[in-house]
């Protein structure tokens, strides 16, 4: 095997450039109610129906922290192998916008609830560690709608006050592929723990991307630009690629990069300037006097740590060690919580190696073809397990199993019933098989003579004939044995 090496560089006209990427991921906390009010958080409700007096900032209204959201962020922090800060502070980030009713967002500025952590990515060129700078809790804003009325903008406050975790990475990522892998890993971890559903279409996972470039070999970071509002991994990758090329072109033509916020135009495939550093808001952060500093009990953190489910990295390790899977196989099986759950359900009662193959090869082919997720699989884990058990016990052959698997896809049929109903059980009775072998050999005396005089290729012909006569049900290994004996 040839070793795969990292090779994402931008080749400018003059130099080879390295791309430096850092991500600020906004993950919506999976919680029934908002961060500082008891309003529901259901997605897709009628506009302004999930709004309390607190969310709409009526005079005299006060925020009260939702303990559940706090615990969710602690769990996420633990999942990121991060330091949980026993003391953190909520600050006000002040700016005016129509969908920000308070005129400030309650966030965490200097003292976030979660400190430094680390995420491990599996790249083709090996594992890659990505540092987490911090995770903090903050409120989401509402939504401004500019295209529903010709003269007015409309505001929907359903999202206003929903809890977000902002997860800030260190500038450790070096390619769009690594970004892809990083986001998927974060998403996977949070879904395993149940702290964010990771649904990018519904906006429960969004990211701002910081991109800069430097000549290969340089130690100093270049000036970065922040690309806002990229709401799919694909667009994120495209935006990075284009932004990096833009920066390289600028630098190679002797110009400077302005530190600024840019938007990615998905139609034109370019990033455009949104606001420069000079126009940047002065958010006038200060501790929110309506909220006390958040003090966490170490016992709570220990308790949450104990309650944490097995996470993808741990699961992978276990699959490799205990199930004897390859790193490649284990990676696929743990990549999504649902896949790992499906796999573990299947292997409860059958051979692990065989199950892995069936899931990764046969089942995924079906899911891909039909564009389904594992949770929509037409074949249940229980039935797939039964099928595999029949293969390993020799009740049916692998070939027959493929046909049965086809049939199982309609209404998730029980493979045992299919096999019994259609009489597909493998013939493994040596006496019966011997009868068939004798029959075949006596029919083909001329070929037996040829075989014995050295034309050994004919062995396969005899096997095929026996199979034909048994309607494909004969146990191939037994046939081999019997044939070899008879042809001696």
């Amino acid at each position, binding site marked *: 095997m040839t070793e795969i090496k990292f090779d994402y560089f931008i080749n400018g006209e003059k130099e080879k450039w390295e791309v430096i990427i850092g991500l600020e991921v906004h993950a919506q906390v999976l919680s029934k109610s908002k961060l500082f009010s008891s309003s529901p958080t259901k997605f897709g409700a009628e506009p302004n129906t999930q709004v309390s007096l607190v969310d709409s900032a009526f005079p005299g209204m006060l925020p*009260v922290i939702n303990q559940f959201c706090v615990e969710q962020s602690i769990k996420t922090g633990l999942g990121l192998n991060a330091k949980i800060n026993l003391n953190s502070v909520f600050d006000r980030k002040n700016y005016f916008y129509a969908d920000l009713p308070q*005129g400030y967002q309650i966030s965490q500025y200097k003292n976030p609830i979660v400190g430094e952590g680390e995420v491990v990515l599996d790249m083709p060129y090996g594992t890659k560690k990505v540092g987490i700078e911090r995770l903090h809790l903050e409120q989401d804003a509402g939504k401004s709608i500019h295209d529903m009325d010709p003269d007015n903008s409309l505001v929907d406050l359903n999202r206003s006050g929903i809890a977000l975790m902002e997860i800030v990475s260190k500038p450790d990522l070096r390619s769009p592929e690594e970004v892809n892998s990083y986001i998927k890993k974060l998403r996977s971890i949070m879904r395993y723990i149940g702290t964010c559903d990771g649904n990018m279409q519904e906006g429960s996972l969004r990211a701002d991307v910081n991109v800069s470039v430097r000549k290969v070999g340089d130690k100093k970071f270049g000036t970065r630009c922040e690309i806002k509002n990229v709401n799919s991994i694909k667009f994120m990758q495209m935006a990075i690629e284009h932004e990096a090329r833009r920066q390289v072109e600028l630098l190679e033509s002797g110009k400077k990069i302005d530190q600024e916020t840019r938007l990615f135009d998905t139609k034109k495939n370019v990033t455009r300037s949104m606001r420069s550093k000079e126009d940047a808001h002065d958010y006038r952060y200060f501790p929110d006097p309506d909220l006390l500093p958040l003090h966490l009990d170490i016992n709570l953190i220990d308790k949450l740590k104990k309650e944490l489910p097995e996470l993808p990295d741990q699961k992978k390790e276990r699959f490799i060690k205990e199930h004897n899977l390859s790193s490649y196989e284990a990676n696929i099986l743990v990549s999504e919580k649902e896949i790992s759950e499906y796999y573990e359900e299947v292997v409860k009662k059958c051979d692990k190696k065989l199950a892995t193959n069936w899931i990764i090869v046969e089942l995924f082919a079906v899911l891909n073809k039909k564009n389904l997720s594992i949770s929509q699989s037409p074949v249940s884990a229980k039935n797939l397990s039964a099928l595999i058990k029949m293969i390993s016990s020799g009740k049916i052959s692998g070939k027959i199993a493929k046909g049965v698997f086809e049939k199982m896809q309609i209404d998730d049929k029980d493979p045992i019933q299919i096999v019994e109903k259609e009489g597909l059980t493998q013939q493994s009775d040596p006496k019966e098989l011997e009868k068939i072998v004798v029959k075949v050999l006596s029919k083909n005396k001329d070929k037996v003579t040829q075989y014995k005089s050295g034309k050994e290729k004919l062995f396969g012909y005899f096997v095929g004939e026996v199979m034909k006569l048994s309607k494909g049900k004969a146990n191939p290994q037994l046939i081999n044995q019997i044939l070899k004996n008879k042809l001696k």
Partner: protein
Amino acid sequence: MSNISELSLTKIINGIKKKEFTSEEVTKSFIDQSKKSKKLNTYITECFEEAIKSAKNFDKNKNYKGLLSGVPIAVKDLFCTKNVRTTAGSKILHNFIPTYESTVTNNLWSQGAFLLGKLNCDEFAMGSSNETSFFGNVINPYGEKLVPGGSSGGSASALAAGLTPATIGTDTGGSIRQPASFTGTVGLKPTYGRCSRWGIVAFASSLDQAGPMTRNVEDCALLFQAMSGYDSKDSTSVDTKVDNYSSKLTDKVKGLKIGIPKEYKVDGMPKEIDDLWKKGIEYLKDAGAIVKNISLPHTMYALPAYYIVAPAEASSNLARYDGVKYGHRAKGKNLIEMYENTRSEGFGDEVKRRILIGTYVLSSGYYDAYYLKAQKVRQLIKNDFDKAFHDVDAILTPSTPSSAFKIGDKTNDPVSMYLNDIFTVPVNLSGLPAISVPAGYDKNNLPLGLQLIGKAFDEQTILNLSLAIEKRADFNKNFKVWWI
């Protein structure tokens, strides 16, 4: 029965209980007095019809269980009242009708009281003379040309003039105690966290506290008891038991140690204030208290620190008044212009001044030099008090550096206006309870108050000490009713 309105809250409650008069008669008496006293400009919104209905309803059901059974009470227009306009003295909320009731007013109503009206105050409680209200000046019953103090000026004036048997105000830097002092009434700023802030239009969240304003100390203890309590809707509310302040009220203060802080003897303080202070010391000594000189060394930094912290919080708290959701909205070609026009038209000069100061002290590059430093000073001031309270049970100071001043006297000089809060502000910065009790008069026969500062959640001690002063001070409301 026009003299009902002259009675104390306690006497009215007892009178109703003993059926000396009905709640309706009481209510009508205050309404009658209020209607005749429009010159004082104390009300922003009158709820007289509703009050009569509530009174009649009370007389029919005769439920005497509450501490305030059958009593009409007018409140500062900073408390949100369900279905009753709540303006905070500002144009920007001139049309705002809440769908909810503040916790503190709700506590009063669940003790059997009902709303008589909403009282004038400085705009968003920013002022020391009630001259910043969008709804005009309030007049002090002690003189046609005099301010009642602020920001709870409407409350103080209405109380002194007999338009409400008691009232509640809010105190961020002295807004209960200073007007109480100017109008010869009793005003208590409770410990921060004792009364819920939920439903009170916010000025400076870390300093705001609601409190009772009454005609005597006995009433004060009662009303304080009725309005206090833990509220899970306010994260800064403190979950400690509400005492039976009324039944524990006593003027037996023998052996209590009283601190006299030397730093409160400020330069240029009128002699009559100093004399009043000395009288106060004598009254307490007479009652058996032990008077000690103490030092609160960082007092001189309190006012500057306050005028950084309070505007900083206010600049953020008032950002929600943007014309988008409720209240006044001006026209504009786009969102930014709508904001600018709404806030230019909606806020008065003093509010704008404080928003500007607050925005400035929080802005990047200035935060450390102003806001952060002010917070450090605040901690030093707290430490001063903590240290002092190792040696004493309460601290006695004048409430204000002068008696009520003339309308317009200080409007062009914000700093001299701010200096009026010099004795009251350190208390808010420290979160401690303090009460202003009438103790005498100046040479013009204007009332003067003394302030007693207590340990956190020890309002009982300062109430008791106030009672001891009240009994000895021989203070009687002595103005002529010139406005009717």
